[in-house]
């Protein structure tokens, strides 16, 4: 029995179809959404959502953080930003990483909330570069 997966970015719906399993990059570790999963809300880090059909990965999408809402029949990923892994532009991501590292150097080291935000952003961009160069 498949599970309905939806990957939605603020601009549009990227994916809406049935798969056997989706692996999501949770903030506290990866989580696989399978049919009959107990209802769960999840905070996502920047990383790759992998869609499985059978034992094979059929599609990989990079999400730059967001939320997921898992129910027994459905898994909705609300991504801040989402692109198919094959479409990742490493150049743009590298430029972004540089800009962020600069911001990190300049940032006030006592302002922890700002540092946490920056850290998450840097992690997301690193994950994007990694995902892009692996494919």
């Amino acid at each position: 029995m498949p599970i309905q997966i939806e990957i939605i970015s603020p601009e549009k719906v990227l994916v809406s179809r049935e798969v056997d399993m989706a692996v999501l990059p949770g903030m506290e570790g990866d989580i696989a959404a399978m049919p009959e999963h107990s209802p769960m809300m999840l905070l996502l880090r920047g990383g790759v959502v992998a869609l499985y059909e059978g034992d094979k990965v059929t599609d990989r999408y990079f999400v730059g953080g967001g939320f997921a809402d898992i129910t027994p029949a459905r898994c909705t990923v609300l991504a801040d930003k989402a692109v198919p892994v094959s479409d990742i532009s490493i150049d743009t991501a590298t430029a972004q990483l540089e800009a962020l590292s600069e911001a990190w150097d300049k940032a006030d080291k006592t302002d922890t909330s700002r540092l946490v935000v920056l850290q998450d952003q840097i992690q997301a961009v690193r994950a994007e570069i990694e995902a892009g160069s692996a494919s």
Partner: protein
Amino acid sequence: MASLKELRARIGSIKSTRKITSAMKMVAAAKLRRAQASAEAARPYAAAMRRMLGELAGATKGEDGAPLLLAGTGQDKVHLLVPMTSDRGLCGGFNANVHRLTLQSIRRLQSEGKTVRLLPVGRRALNFFMREHADLIVDHVIGTSAKEIPFSVASGLGDKINALLEAGEIDVCTLVFNKFRNAMTQEPTCQQLVPMVVEDASPQLEASNDVAQYEFEPDEATLLAMLLPRNLQVQIYASLLETVAGENGARMTAMDNATRNAGRTIDSLTQVYNRTRQTNITNELIEIISGAQAV
């Protein structure tokens, strides 16, 4: 009466005006279609966001220390109004409607003894409120009429509002924008952003699906704290998209009217032109004939 030369010049200039307005109408119609499509595409995200937020708000109900975005500051002194308009004019009463509604709200709030601050979005609103209430403006955002609005415009604006709220500079935030009804009608509306008005998750859903069963990772409070600013951005994004769609709809209607008006003016001027020409010819003939008779 105007001379023939003048009339010809006027007819010529109105003809080129008509060409421009009808071209603008076509462009607006094409942009409207695109804007409507992107507003359509953005809807599922907002819907899913509302659903999650409803569940979360239900799960955290009654707990202390609710985030500012949800609960507000508990005060009602400083109001931030965010009038949202287009960057360019020539779209009928579209922007003026937002300005009027905002001015009314300002007057009402001030008469109640509240402090009002403004954060105009769009060049039109900025220019207007620079003249009217320059002292109230805290910040502004322009460049909303671009071909496609990136989500970053909305997230930047959301962050600004959030920062003002965190700094304790505002208590309530209200968005004033044109709600898109159809291409002909846009309805100026006030929408309260902070404190957030949470629609209750549909009661049937809660009854069948025990809310307490939901697992949260990390905990509810963290999720809520992350979700709320995002929701603010999504609401702003939705109204930005409606503004763009409304702007193009309004421009299409305005330019359609202008084109028709130009056509009418050309017709009546052409009539005057022909009549004048006829009169001139008659006059000349009379002169020639009476000259000939005198000889």
